């Protein structure tokens, strides 16, 4: 019995659903309206200026509804769903991603829960290589100083504990150009290799999380190749939907991005791209089930009874993005333009600067907070964030930039700028959100408040 692809009842959908972008766009008569966008995000808490899409992403009502349909299909007759539908649907999702990221083969695309799991997959492979003698004690792994905390934990568990060494490269912030990043990376890599260490793996962020900056990943991958780094893993947790992703152009061996941050999927889902090569390493999902040994993509598609629905709505998400002019690319461009505009508005209002030039900002921007607020440690940043949430209804993460010895860093009229907000712009944001933030900070300054005075909740 034929099972109709999801969404075929939707009058907006073309007859052959789930096909390429082109089919959907040709039949488009009108784009999503502002009022429809508001409806799609009506479940967001009202009264909150939600300027932190970067942390947990967002999911439109259509996709939540699509997810429920998939969940109910499983609950209705799970055995049938498992035997006859699940794998086929996951393959469909993987194929869409492969096209989005310009990968050659769908075999290269695995779907996992999040970037953390993907990093663990790559790092556990490194751990085995040490245990099985393919890597020698002291062989190195390179990471950026600002790597995500969960990635650092994985490095500790699978590299350090296995006898590997870790080279940490510090990147400058605030930063003025790609050249600064490239120069620092080259220096850091050379320093780390000074005593002839063999570098087995480099982990590079495509967009660092905190502070948030677009890294010239392609150039850094090239440097790694030049310097004889065996494999490169690009942690692009934020990337898809916020920068252009072309995995062949970037040239890394492994590339991961979350789909629930900027690609409208429900929490949580990510893809891990593993470039096929004659020496493609043998990666495994840490949760071993019936499909062990059948390749990472197949292993990842069954890790025991789970709710796989967030992986199954990818076709519906693609459809959703095509309701916008220019599809995902259009959304991305407009988010970028708007967030830069808002960033510049805030910097002007506060007398500070952006943490990086516009071309190094994705759909997020770092803006210096007035030094008078006195963000002098991580706790200050957290307290200020809580205070903004609780007293001003503004949700925005705050970064404390440790002053580097001997460097003054950024300054404003009153002293050193050590605190930065990271603002995001996604399709549901409005000008009002950023005005609320602007005025909240202005209010705090007027009241003479500093972080020291703020209570922890």
């Amino acid at each position, binding site marked *: 019995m034929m099972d109709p692809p999801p969404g075929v009842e939707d009058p907006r959908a073309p007859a052959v659903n789930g096909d390429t972008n082109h089919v959907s766009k040709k039949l488009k008569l009108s784009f999503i309206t502002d009022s429809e966008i508001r409806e799609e995000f009506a479940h967001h808490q009202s009264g909150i200026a939600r300027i932190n899409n970067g942390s947990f992403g967002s999911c439109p009502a259509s996709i939540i509804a699509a997810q429920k349909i998939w969940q109910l299909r499983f609950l209705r*007759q799970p055995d049938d769903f498992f035997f006859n539908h699940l794998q086929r649907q996951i393959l469909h999702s993987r194929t869409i991603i492969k096209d989005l990221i310009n990968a050659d083969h769908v075999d290269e695309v695995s779907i996992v829960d999040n970037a953390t799991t993907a990093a663990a997959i790559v790092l556990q492979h490194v751990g085995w290589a040490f245990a099985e003698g393919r890597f020698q004690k002291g062989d190195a792994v390179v990471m950026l100083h600002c790597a995500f905390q969960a990635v650092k934990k994985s490095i500790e568990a699978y590299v350090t504990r296995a006898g590997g060494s870790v080279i940490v490269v510090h990147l400058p912030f605030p930063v003025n150009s790609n050249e600064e990043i490239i120069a620092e990376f080259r220096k850091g890599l050379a320093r780390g290799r000074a005593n002839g260490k063999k570098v087995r793996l480099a982990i590079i962020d495509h967009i660092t999380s905190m502070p948030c900056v677009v890294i010239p990943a392609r150039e850094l991958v090239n440097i790694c190749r030049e310097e004889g780094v065996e494999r490169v893993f690009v942690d692009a947790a934020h990337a898809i939907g916020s920068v252009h992703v072309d995995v062949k152009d970037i040239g890394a061996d492994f590339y991961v991005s979350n789909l629930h941050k900027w690609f409208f999927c429900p929490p949580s889902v990510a893809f891990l791209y593993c470039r096929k090569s004659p020496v493609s390493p043998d990666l495994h999902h840490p949760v071993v089930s019936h499909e062990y040994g059948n390749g990472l993509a197949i292993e990842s598609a069954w890790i025991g009874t789970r709710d796989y629905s967030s992986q199954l709505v990818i076709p519906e998400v693609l459809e959703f993005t095509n309701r916008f002019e220019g599809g995902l690319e259009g959304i991305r461009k407009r988010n970028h333009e708007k967030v830069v505009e808002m960033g510049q508005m805030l910097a002007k209002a506060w007398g500070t600067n952006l943490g990086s030039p516009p071309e190094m900002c994705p759909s997020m921007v770092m803006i210096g907070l007035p030094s008078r607020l006195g963000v002098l440690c991580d706790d200050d940043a957290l307290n200020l964030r809580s205070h903004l949430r609780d007293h001003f209804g503004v949700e925005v993460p705050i970064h404390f930039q440790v002053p580097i010895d001997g460097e003054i860093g950024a300054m404003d009229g009153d002293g050193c700028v050590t605190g930065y907000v990271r603002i995001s712009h996604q399709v549901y944001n409005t000008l009002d959100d950023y005005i609320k933030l602007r005025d909240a900070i202005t209010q705090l300054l007027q009241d003479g408040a500093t972080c020291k005075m703020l209570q922890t909740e």
Partner: protein
Amino acid sequence: MAADDDENPKPGSNYITQSELRSEFSHHDPTIARINNGSFGCCPATIIAAQQRHHLLLLRQPDYYHAKLLKPSILHSRRLIQTLINADRVDEISIVDNATTAAAVVLQHTTSSFSLSSTFRPGDAALILHYAYGAVKKSVQAYITRAGGHVIEVHLPFPVKSASEIVLEFRKALRTGKSNGRKIRLAVIDHITSMPCVIIPVKELVQICRNEGVDTIFIDGAHAIGNLPIDVKSIGADFYTSNLHKWLFCPPSAAFLYSKQTSDELMDAATAWMGTRDYSAQLVLPEVIEFVNRFEGGISGIMKRNHDKVVEMGEMLAGAWGSELGAPPEMCASLAMVGLPICLGVKSDLDALKLRRHLRECFKVEVPIYYRAPLEGEVDDSVTTGYVRISHQVYNVVDDYYRLRDAVIKLVEVGFTCALLSK
């Protein structure tokens, strides 16, 4: 606090009615005789709604949710599980996605102590049951075998007549396994084997392991919670896992992992690869406790009635087919293995799978089938090689089992054999 009230079943007149029960499971495909709760479990409408509330709470304001609401909600669920399984401390309980994940966590933890421990000797072993769940066997291969550990598989009899048969075989296999001075680092023992489905006397087996110097004992109780009472202290193992979505009405998916000695390294390694996810399936334990207390006797009452009914149905089927149960009633929980007529000719695992599909597609009966290979010396064609594994959960009705009975009788009448099924 509200949780205390929730733990006691409500008085008589407030019990769930038949009509409410049907309503709770009205999302199940009504055309199917769904006799396979064991594989994927079930989730009542009330719990689905509770899960959706949690999900929306997260989507509404995720930063606040993660900062303030998530941890206390998970803690609440963990406390309820702690009570259910008689664990001493809540920090012995963690919630993971499913038993397969729990197995991976325990095996990874064991393996890193294999390779890093200075007392590790090549040939050190892990012990599993031959009937261990396929995914767990693969996990043992992926972690233990790969790290150089030797794997001992304990063969247990099936059909089986008593728990003492199991104890005897296990003791023999353990002694043999240790015979050339092997050190057994880890024993993985099912509380209820999946296929064939039988309750294993874990308390006795754990004691035997301790007596024989096994380092670490991990009980795979994937089916257990909501199926039979669990007392982790009495069982005395180092690790115990069970799925919450199989027999405890949680949505897919969640499981608990009990660790007698919490280890930072264990939890670090586990959280290192988990990351943020949708936790909503883990957070509905309070609503689940409320739900089970709408039944007379609460979860105990549900377990007892499921058991009594599945045995009754099993005996009904065996009577109708001229076969037998694969295990005595006291070794069945809410599941029973019932012999299929030999003339159906189930001669391989593939036959079992194909016959299952045939029953699903042509008779709309969902029931898993087990192929039991004849032992040496057994005369082919006079030995039962096919068993159905029937489940009974609160939504099942007698008609489900009559439909299975009649489907099989029909197949026998028309001279059906598995050989006739196409590839």
